[in-house]
């Protein structure tokens, strides 16, 4: 018998609007949609956990159902929870293990970045990975940096001490191992606004761990991050920013709602970067910018939507002079983190994104802008456009 804690499913009135907004249910009949997998099925699982449907695994945890829900049902949380509590998962999953340990894989790969990037791009390696690890060979991989963001930051740390007002930057694995330049851009942007950057010891925020069912490990990382970030808070402005919408979402919501941890120490002062910048801009602290003369299409990632942060990003972008901005209709790109790297979901993942890719083509931009690192991978792989982060664009506009 289950100890009943999350009983928000009880508020569902079956309006089914969540299923209308579910990108997965729209693209495959194999997933019956969030209403049926979440609140409906929860009653059955409470009756008998054996009634759990294997189709739960198709949920990408994009959280669009929760945004749509007028009854405040934590649909995606219910599904994620059920997925790992009740479905039987074979313990030996080397692919999922390595995919979810982004920091472990990242720290190893950055040491031999050119070699790793070369090897991973070889067709034979891709075919072997498809055969042995069930990673689709058609999937493009992110490249690794030569050296991590933190090692670069060490060199400039002394300089940051010169700023009286400093924020803590939770860079996340992607910036650290794959896109150091984004971290560098952030430091440039903030410094130009007379704001310094602190970096603390951090572990992977836990999003890929949660997605792959390593909840114990995710909790361990979360506790580490909460402790580390709340310690640093004392010596600077107390604000924590991230450039990854999913990291921000994990720190603020997944830690408490899904992992059941107390994140009150960091909850109210953790911000996705554009919200922080928006507040500063509102205060009048706007960096000097030059016209960029770019036409760009903006794609809003699911987790930023759930976080309620899209309007801040759009506001920031609108303040960049010379930016011809096309705001795309809000659609899921389909990659959903590690989901799109798995052979069994690859087709669904690609099908979901098709509509967005068409929208991008129709916008005829020079760049695509998005806040999320995996959205960027998906769009770059499926369209001809380069995808950049809003902060990178800001850095490009700096005088």
């Amino acid at each position, binding site marked *: 018998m289950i100890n009943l804690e999350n009983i928000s499913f009880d508020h569902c009135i079956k309006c089914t609007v969540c299923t209308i907004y579910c990108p997965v249910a729209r693209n495959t009949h194999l997933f019956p949609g969030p209403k049926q997998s979440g609140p409906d099925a929860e009653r059955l699982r409470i009756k008998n956990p*054996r009634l759990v449907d294997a189709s739960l695994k198709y949920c990408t945890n994009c959280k669009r159902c929760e945004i749509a829900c007028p009854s405040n049902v934590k649909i995606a949380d219910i599904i994620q929870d059920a997925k790992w509590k009740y479905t039987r998962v074979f313990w030996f999953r080397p692919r999922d293990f390595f995919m979810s340990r982004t920091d472990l894989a990242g720290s190893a790969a950055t040491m031999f970045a050119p070699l790793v990037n070369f090897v991973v791009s070889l067709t034979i390696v891709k075919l072997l990975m498809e055969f042995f690890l069930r990673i689709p060979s058609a999937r493009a991989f992110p490249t690794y940096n030569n050296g991590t963001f933190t090692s670069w930051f060490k060199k400039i740390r002394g300089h940051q001490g010169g700023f009286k007002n400093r924020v803590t930057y939770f860079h996340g694995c992607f910036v650290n191992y794959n896109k150091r330049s984004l971290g560098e851009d952030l430091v440039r942007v903030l410094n130009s606004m007379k704001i310094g950057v602190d970096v603390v010891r951090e572990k992977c925020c836990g999003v890929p761990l949660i997605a792959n069912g390593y909840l114990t490990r995710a909790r361990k990382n979360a506790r580490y991050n909460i402790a580390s970030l709340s310690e640093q808070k004392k010596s600077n402005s107390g604000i924590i920013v991230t450039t990854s919408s999913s990291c921000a979402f994990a720190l603020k919501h997944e830690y408490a709602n899904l992992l059941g941890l107390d994140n009150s120490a960091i909850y109210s002062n953790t911000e996705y970067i554009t919200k922080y910048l928006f507040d500063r801009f509102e205060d009048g602290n706007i960096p000097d910018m030059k016209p960029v003369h770019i036409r760009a299409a903006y794609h809003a990632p699911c987790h930023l939507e759930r976080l309620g942060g899209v309007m801040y990003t759009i506001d920031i972008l609108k303040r960049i002079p010379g930016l011809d901005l096309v705001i795309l209709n809000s659609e899921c790109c389909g990659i959903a983190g590690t989901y799109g790297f798995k052979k069994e979901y690859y087709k669904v993942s690609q099908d979901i994104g098709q509509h967005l890719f068409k929208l991008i083509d129709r916008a005829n931009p020079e760049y695509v802008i998005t806040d999320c690192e995996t959205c960027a991978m998906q769009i770059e792989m499926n369209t001809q456009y380069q995808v950049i982060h809003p902060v990178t664009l800001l850095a490009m506009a700096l005088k």
Partner: protein
Amino acid sequence: MRTIETDVIIIGGGATGAGTVRDLSLRGIRAVLVEKDDIAFGTTGRNHGLLHSGARYAVNDLESARECISENRILKKIAAHCIEDTGGLFVTLPEDERTYHDRLLEGCRQAGIKAEEISAREAFSIEPNLNRSIIRAIKVPDGTIDPFRLAASNVLDAVEHGALILTHTRVTGVIVEGTRVAGITCEKDPGELINIRGRLVINAAGVWGQHICSLAGIELTMYPSKGSMVIIDYRINGVVVNRCRKPSDGDIIVPGDTVSLIGTTSKKIDYDKIEYLNVDDDEIEVLLRDGEKLIPNLSRTRVLRAYCGVRPLVDTPGKQAGGRSISRGIVLIDHEERDGLEGLLTIAGGKLMTYRLMAEMASDMTCLKLGIKAECSTHKQPLPGSETKISPKKHIRAFTGIPESVVGSTLYRHGQRVRNILKKDKKNYRIICECEMVTEGEVEYALKNLNVKDIVDLRRRTRIGMGPCQGELCAYRAAGLFKELGPGNQSVKSSQLLRDFLEERWKGIKPVLWGDSLREAEFTYWIYQGLFGLGDIDFTKRHGPDEGGDR
């Protein structure tokens, strides 16, 4: 007028009537069952579905307790698919009388019920949602039983052994020839008169038995007692939770299928009120208040419905010298002996738990009267659906491709008959009721095999519309299926079926209309009235069977 010749006529399609028709059919006796509404429409379908261990009677009524535990063991064998062996707890709250606990243990020992004192901590591990302030706990072999399924399975078995079942058939008269009952006249709606002639009539109409006797010109007095219950949206408890105190209102929470039920109140009512029962506000208040003391989560949970039933307590004159006694026990009356009227038996009193025993007693008496030598086999012969031991794992594997929740739910409801229901064909497992995972295949099976006349009947066979949405999304789909798959001589239009079903659901929702139930009801109203305009259809005009499609 149609005339049917048979050996035995059984009036009443509750558990007792269904049990009796099955018992007789298994003994090879021709039998016809007549029910004015649907199988398990009356008291049988209006209780909390507790599979008594007998512990609830162990202090005050040892005889009933013994009957319960012996039937409990039999039912677990013959009706496995209608039963969940959840186990049960008796818990003592700080404000309860301490000695009742010991008296209960002693009573259970005397009745042969395996009751075991456990620590409060152990009780929490069995039932984590229990009130943390309980002081003592007893574990008993309680369980839950689905009365609809139980009655329907008995009827199904009887039909498979040659019995005839007439539902929605009202008895209009008892044919008395001299001092002998020769049969009954009845009306199968709409307006079809039927004569049934038989050698013996068994009155198993429960509380309505008083009326049947009056039709035969004899007197039988019932003392109807109303019991109300409320249904909670989901299973807030996994095992039966009883309050360890003298039986009173709101002292039991029974998990039943996907929901939990809080029982029960007890109110004496007049016989002429039994057709117009309502749950009173004060009853709901007591049930929720006391239920919350057992499972505190209750206060945060949606209440789905409230409903009530009538206990058929029989007056048995002459049992006690110079007085009358009202018995909760089984009453079998041979009217030849009591009133000098041959060919009529009344079987009444008792409980859902003892339906099989009552059926056995009535059938034994029937054999005696008719001079037939045949042994009862209902205690050994499993009901259809429970033929072999059920292994959910094996079944789920056998139906790979169909969602686990569908296979599991169908198996839970129909036992082994799941093989006659599910097919690996997408149309077959299309979901009609999303709360209870009722598929098109299950609806089709029920329509073709289980004596279903309307959606309300269908609900009793399949749980359609019994979940949190109360028919919001399944009602119109079911109405459509009736058109497609229903009985050929469908004289009622789908829209009428739909409206009747929603009205029936509404009756139970109305008393508990607040919070999420209210929101859901509003939404349902919006769909059926705002979108479909159901309230504007004129149902007063009679539609012929060949009338064109529904609006």
